[in-house]
């Protein structure tokens, strides 16, 4: 059997040609985007990134750069328990096998999971190897390899939750309250649940272990998690309060991805995978991580001895949208005005969430900041020191960490908080430290004589602060506070780490599912601008009006 032809990008499939391995004329927008990407990339790496140069580049460099996300990455890629500087995982072993077969060294590149294809398009990595499920849209946009694992999805719930012991409980809840199910955003589990229609609520997380932890803690009312089976096998011991519900569902394939225009590299990858499958290397690797199961064995990764894909394509598609095969088979990227028409309203609605977060969090931030600033300047010694410590602590730690702590720590100590309020409090606390500093400067700018005049008139300290000092300080701080308000608008994007879908997150979701990165990116930018520009104008106006020699 001649490897050169057997692993060409055009193997056959059981029934219909699988778009993954067939060079169907690509959709125009994808082509345009790709052309743009390539033109852009060529300007920077004119030698490296010409079409068809992928394998040559890897060989010349002697290194295969593979991208994956080690955050919550078990059993795929994760920091070794013994030596956190080392990586473990079946994909680490697989990368070694791929690189060995090509005759180069593997080199790991960290990337946020959902951004890995973007990293590859940027030219940072040669190959995405991180539990990416085969989907028609991915097959359309990237060079997609032979599968290296057949995954299934496992429903997880709390052991002590008597209202959720089967799939039927999930879809037809006995108490009539819709169940809330966590998934990894953009994953096959997400698509599987979306295909169920509005029978369940979906909570999208950025990390797989976050999604499981949310079930354990009932954080944000999450009842269940639909998880890739390998991940559950890996994490089972870490979540003793969770249990598997029903049989695995939604079979599909993990595939490696290369750039669409690098078929030689894809062929080399396919050859390595097939080799590993035939000589038992893949089985050994999977068994090492307890991933070799009856599904893998009986389906033999769905290849015939010629390396031809014979898998159940309908089964793979059923993961995507059950009962809607027709639309699946005609999936195509959306672009231009069409995508704006289709998805623009979704983005605008998410901009509403951004506004809601900002206008709820900012007044709280100003209030807390004012209290801290006043306590520092006028409070008793101990309280003043505590306020200083608060400001330094909050200012010295990142917003994303604060959000994470609020979202996952408060339920741990028995305080239920949903994602929206966790986001509001996180933003408010983070910004309160900055508002405290602004107010401190504002209070310092009030001449000493003002407090003396008030005291001489018999004002108590609190009354003097409330009637005389704080109103004057407020005028001084309005311009910088307005500036911070604009900054907060943009920082709401960070809230997606605790599953709040605001404008940025919605953009990532929509851009990935349509391929319309540029069109939706422009719309998203315009929406942000539409929110922040009026504030900028207001800030400028206030600055003019409240300059020290005007008192209106």
């Amino acid at each position: 059997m001649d490897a050169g032809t057997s692993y060409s990008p055009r193997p056959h499939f059981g029934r219909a040609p699988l778009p993954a391995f067939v060079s169907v004329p690509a959709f125009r927008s994808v082509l345009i985007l790709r052309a743009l990407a390539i033109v852009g990339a060529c300007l920077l790496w004119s030698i490296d990134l010409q079409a068809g140069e992928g394998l040559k580049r890897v060989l010349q460099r002697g290194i295969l750069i593979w991208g994956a996300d080690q955050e919550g990455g078990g059993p795929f890629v994760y920091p070794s328990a013994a030596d956190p500087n080392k990586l473990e995982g079946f994909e680490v072993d697989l990368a070694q096998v791929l690189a060995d077969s090509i005759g180069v060294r593997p080199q790991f590149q960290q990337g946020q999971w959902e951004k890995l294809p973007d990293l590859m398009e940027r030219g940072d990595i040669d190959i995405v190897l991180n539990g990416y499920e085969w989907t028609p849209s991915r097959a359309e946009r990237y060079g997609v390899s032979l599968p290296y694992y057949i995954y299934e999805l496992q429903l997880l719930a709390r052991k002590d939750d008597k209202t959720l012991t089967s799939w039927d409980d999930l879809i037809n809840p006995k108490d009539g309250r819709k169940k809330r199910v966590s998934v990894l955003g953009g994953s096959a589990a997400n698509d599987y649940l979306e295909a169920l229609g509005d029978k369940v609520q979906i909570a999208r997380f950025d990390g797989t272990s976050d999604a499981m932890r949310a079930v354990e803690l009932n954080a944000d009312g999450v009842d269940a998690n639909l998880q890739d089976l390998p991940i559950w096998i890996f994490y089972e011991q870490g979540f003793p309060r969770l249990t598997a519900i029903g049989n695995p569902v939604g079979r599909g394939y993990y595939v490696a991805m290369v750039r669409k225009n690098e078929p030689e590299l894809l062929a080399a990858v396919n050859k390595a995978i097939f080799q590993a499958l035939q000589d038992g290397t893949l089985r050994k690797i999977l068994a090492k991580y307890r991933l070799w199961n009856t599904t893998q064995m009986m389906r033999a990764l769905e290849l015939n001895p010629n390396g031809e894909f014979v898998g159940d394509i309908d089964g793979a598609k059923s993961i995507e949208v059950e009962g809607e095969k027709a639309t699946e088979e005609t999936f195509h990227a959306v672009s231009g005005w069409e995508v704006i028409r289709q998805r623009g309203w979704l983005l605008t609605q998410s901009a509403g969430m951004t506004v809601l977060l900002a206008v709820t969090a900012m007044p709280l931030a100003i209030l807390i900041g004012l209290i801290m600033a006043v306590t520092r300047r006028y409070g008793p010694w101990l309280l003043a020191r505590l306020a200083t410590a608060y400001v330094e602590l909050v200012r010295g730690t990142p917003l994303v960490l604060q959000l994470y702590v609020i979202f996952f720590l408060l339920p741990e100590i028995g305080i239920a908080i949903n994602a929206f309020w966790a986001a509001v409090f996180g933003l408010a606390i983070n910004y309160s430290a900055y508002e405290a500093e602004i107010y401190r400067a504002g209070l310092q700018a009030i001449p000493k004589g003002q407090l003396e005049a008030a005291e001489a008139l018999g004002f108590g300290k609190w009354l003097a602060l409330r009637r005389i000092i704080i109103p004057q300080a407020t005028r001084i701080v309005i311009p910088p506070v307005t500036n911070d308000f604009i900054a907060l608008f943009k920082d709401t994007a960070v809230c997606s780490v605790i599953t709040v879908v605001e404008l940025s997150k919605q953009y990532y979701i929509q851009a990935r599912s349509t391929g319309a990165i540029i069109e939706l990116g422009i719309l998203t930018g315009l929406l942000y601008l539409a929110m922040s520009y009026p504030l900028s104008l207001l800030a400028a106006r206030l600055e003019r009006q409240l300059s020290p020699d005007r008192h209106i």
Partner: protein
Amino acid sequence: MISLHNIVKRYGQNEVLRGVSLSVAKGEVCVLLGPSGSGKSTLLRTINGLETFNSGEIQVGDVTLRAEPGAARDAALRQIRQRVGMVFQQFNLFPHRTVIQNVTEAPIHVLKRDPEEARQLAKTLLDRVGLGDKCDMWPSSLSGGQQQRVAIARALAMNPQAILFDEPTSALDPRMTAEVTSVMTDLARSGQTMIVVTHAMGFARTVANTVHILHAGTIAESGSPQQIFESPQTEVTREFLAEAKRA
């Protein structure tokens, strides 16, 4: 009415008030004179607690203010501040309040007076200092002399038993000084008890009942204006007066 007994104030090793005693009778206009750094402003500000002191005591009516910090001193200060008004060198009007709001602020929020009554009183007082037509203006749009007259009206609105003036005309040019001095003279003629720290010799000579010369934290000489200006008894007073004449 107001008496200070043996007031001592130190900043570290530096003794700025070295046991000062004086008393001011009801209706008396008492002027404190002395070179810069003699401690006259500091002395004035101990009376309503804007400055602390280390020993001695201050009597305002039946209220006694002692040096030791604590609840007793705070309570005494609350009473004293409602009875004794103050006018500052830099006016210290509240820039975020209109002229009339500056005058009504303390009566309404400290004395809990009816706002309408307080407004009526404020109008009367502003008329009295010649600013009845400026009620709704912002302090920053007034001249220094006008601002200081508003400050006097603001102090009067508390119906004080005495008013402390801390160099009320030092930040003003001669014409504005005259405006303010004339208001202060009217006040003195109406029987208002006043303690005035000033460099304005004319005011001291013509309006004061008693003049005290401070020097290096002590009272060098006290007496009627006539005594002090016509026949000063001490070298310190003579030097000070000669210095003032040259300036």
